[in-house]
């Protein structure tokens, strides 16, 4: 077919012999046309990033292309000399990376970094370079381009940095733009703006965009065509409407079914008994003065009041900097709050020194976000599990029995107790963390972004597990997340936080259906995939 910006035919990339499969991608074929966004979707390890890196000629040395061709405007990128390929890069093909902080050099102003591209690829004078740079910054809608021009990366927000990276990618008006998870590290409102920008850019620059993502809602938001990958193989491709609304392959169906959505049906009635009551909890950080700056105080958490009933799941939703992490740290007293009360049963958890709290810690437990950092790599799972109850006076054999029982509840084998964390996948580790938190039989469990780092199908499993445990054990859960979709799936009630304050509270229905606060409305409208009704797939027989 003519007119394609990039056409990939039968691409196969080999993994080194020690890999878990022989090909990173195999038999990959797809095309990108001008003025088109092609989304490559898949979970971690599906080979989607390898595809993007192959097109840029940035494959790690251990990976070798063994077959296929990759035609860019009729020329095969794979047969090109390195220097020819380098000439295309940045000029005709450019790339936007996931992490905007590490994609920019911290030692130069962002203006210099954009100009550098003009200096490399054109013979413009200094003044012309600067004018072009400022025009680009206007185009990616950076506020106050003059000021941003002379800022260093650390002085900009994540969204602004990503705009700079996109501006750099657009500098030479490329025909092909490759974006590797460009919005994954961003807050949802920033993500919405960046996605909207991608949609305008494809028409204004008439470029083809290869957009790598794991999030089906993002796909629904921007994709023209979709390529679904699993373990290096394309399992399905087609137009966005076809794939999203009528997926054929079981894996695609499974992924789409795992997209978090507001749960349907009546919520179970809640008990009257209150498990956790928080009154006027507040926290201020004091930043000491330095030579050049005056001392500041930052009100991280304005006095917050809420209560959670026994068996309830309360969602606390907010973007980065909203104070939700400070709230959590204060609740489990990893931080000392300035003021306020935390009542669990008839004990005020906010009072007393941290060492006097040790016995009370049994009542409130936490599951952290990072499944790789929250288990001690040098101790066996069993040792880590029984440590908690043994601190509270349970004998070793009783604790060990409890650990075995909990392994069953989180659907792992007993054998896992004798292993070390390095042997488990992210989802398995997160289940171990849940088991560890439940070992001391807490009254309240805090899940701090507990599923944010997981693939969507694993995320769904862990959410299901939490819901089951809650039902069976009558546990009270505080579910902290930045993702409204996930919150709406598991929570009974929601609290929305912004800048250290609770701005909205109510049942999921109320918050979604009739948001009162402007910030909540903004969050809701920023959710990707708003127009897309997920087809009810689980009812259909899978082929």
């Amino acid at each position, binding site marked *: 077919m003519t007119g394609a910006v990039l056409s990939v035919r039968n691409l196969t990339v080999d993994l080194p012999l020690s890999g878990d499969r022989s090909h990173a991608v195999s038999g990959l074929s797809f095309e990108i046309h001008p003025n088109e966004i092609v989304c490559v979707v898949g979970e971690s390890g599906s080979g989607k990033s390898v595809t993007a890196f192959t097109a840029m000629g940035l494959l790690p040395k251990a990976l070798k292309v063994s077959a296929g061709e990759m035609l860019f405007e009729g020329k095969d990128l794979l047969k090109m000399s390195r220097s020819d390929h380098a000439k295309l890069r940045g000029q005709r093909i450019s790339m936007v990376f996931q992490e905007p902080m590490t994609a920019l050099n911290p030692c130069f102003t962002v203006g210099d970094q954009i100009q550098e591209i003009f200096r490399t690829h054109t013979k413009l004078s200094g003044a012309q370079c600067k004018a072009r740079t400022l025009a680009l910054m206007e185009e990616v809608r950076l506020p106050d381009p003059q000021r941003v021009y002379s800022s260093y990366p650390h002085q900009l927000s994540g969204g602004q940095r990503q705009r700079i990276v996109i501006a750099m990618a657009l500098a030479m008006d490329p025909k092909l733009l490759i974006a590797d998870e460009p919005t994954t590290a961003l807050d949802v409102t920033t993500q919405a703006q960046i996605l909207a920008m991608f949609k305008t850019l494809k028409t204004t620059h008439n470029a083809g965009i290869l957009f790598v993502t794991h999030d089906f809602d993002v796909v629904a938001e921007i994709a023209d065509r979709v390529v679904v990958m699993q373990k290096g193989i394309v399992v399905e491709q087609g137009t966005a409407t076809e794939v999203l609304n009528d997926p054929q392959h*079981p894996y695609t169906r*499974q992924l789409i079914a795992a997209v978090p959505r507001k749960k349907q049906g009546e919520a179970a009635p809640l008990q009257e008994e209150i498990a956790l009551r928080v009154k006027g909890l507040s926290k201020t950080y004091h930043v000491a003065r330095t030579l050049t700056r005056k001392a500041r105080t930052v009100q991280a958490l304005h006095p917050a009041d809420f209560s959670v009933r026994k068996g309830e799941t309360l969602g606390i939703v907010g973007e980065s900097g909203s104070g939700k992490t400070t709230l959590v740290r204060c609740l*489990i*007293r*990893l931080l000392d709050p300035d003021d306020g009360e935390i009542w669990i049963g008839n004990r005020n958890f906010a009072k007393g020194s941290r*060492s006097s709290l*040790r*016995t009370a*810690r*049994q009542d*409130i*437990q*936490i599951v*952290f*976000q*990072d499944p790789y*950092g*929250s*288990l*001690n*790599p*040098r*101790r066996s799972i069993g040792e*880590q599990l029984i*440590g*908690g109850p043994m*601190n*509270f006076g349970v004998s070793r054999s009783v604790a060990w029995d409890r650990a075995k029982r909990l392994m069953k509840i989180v*659907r*792992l*084998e007993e*054998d*896992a107790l004798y*292993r*070390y964390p*390095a*042997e*488990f996948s992210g989802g*398995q580790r997160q289940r171990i*963390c849940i088991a*560890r*938190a439940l*070992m*001391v039989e807490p009254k309240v469990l805090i899940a701090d972004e507990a599923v944010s780092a997981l693939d969507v*199908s*694993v995320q*769904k*499993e862990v959410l*299901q597990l939490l819901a089951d445990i809650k039902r069976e054990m009558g546990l009270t859960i505080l579910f902290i997340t930045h993702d409204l979709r996930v919150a709406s799936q598991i929570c009974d009630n929601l609290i929305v936080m912004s800048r250290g304050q609770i701005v909205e509270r109510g049942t999921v229905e109320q918050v979604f259906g009739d948001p009162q606060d402007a910030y909540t409305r903004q969050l809701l409208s920023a959710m990707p995939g708003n127009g897309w009704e997920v087809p009810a797939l689980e009812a259909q027989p899978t082929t």
Partner: protein
Amino acid sequence: MTSLNLALPQPGTVRRKGFIGRALANPVFLFGAVLLGLIVAMAALAPLLAPYNPLAQNMLTRTVSPFWMSDGNWAHPLGTDGLGRDYLSRIIYGARISLLIGVFTVICSGIIGTVMGVLAGYFGGKIDLVINFLIMTRLTLPVVMVALAVVALFGGSLIVVVLVLGLLLWDRFAVVMRSAVMQIRNQEYIQAAQSMGYSTPKLLFKELLPNIFDRLAVIATFEMAHAILLEASLSFLGLGVQPPTPSWGLMVAEGRQYLLFDSWLILIPGAAICVLVLAINMIGDGLRDALAPENRN
């Protein structure tokens, strides 16, 4: 959702080598360990191995050359020194001194440095300020000068040398432990342990120490080599182990006057020091590689 993989990796598919297994697979470590093993065996079995009493003087057989030289003979394989003492016996007994100094100095300085580093790194704040000040103060002191001064005041004996070196060589332990602990204390598993009611000492010993042990082991080997070298320098300057005790550093010092015509008197103990330090450093390098988490499995 039955198709999702809930199964664990089967035992046998993931085979973990223990840390000793991983270390032994490392040729550098293996070579260093064999070398050190030989030296330790030599020191331990000194009375059995040494052909003569290392202190026995014999004026009739002074500065006999080692066997490979034209005027050497096998009665004294490494020759004799200026007082007619058998050089091989002195080298064998000298290994005891070097190893004793290395091991005890590291135990002493390791405990001081690790305690200081862990306290500073974990608690931070004022404790960190004080300990940082101590580290800075220690770093401004030239080790050899201070050691010389102290030994000159209190006299040179094995115990004084060990104590002086032990009290001087803790700086690297403290600096490295402090930064290692600062990295680890903010990990979520430490916070999880806090919220599970671990007391501070238990948390430090059970959760923290296992994760910094690799770094501890590596510094210990390097400091051991350092201590052995320092003892040799002190003895060379006449302020370390006192004659007639056979110490390699002292042997170098005593051989100084024969440098021009009987240079093997210096070269042999010098080579012994060199081999021991090399062996210990190789073990340190090997340990560092074997203990790195990315080299597991």
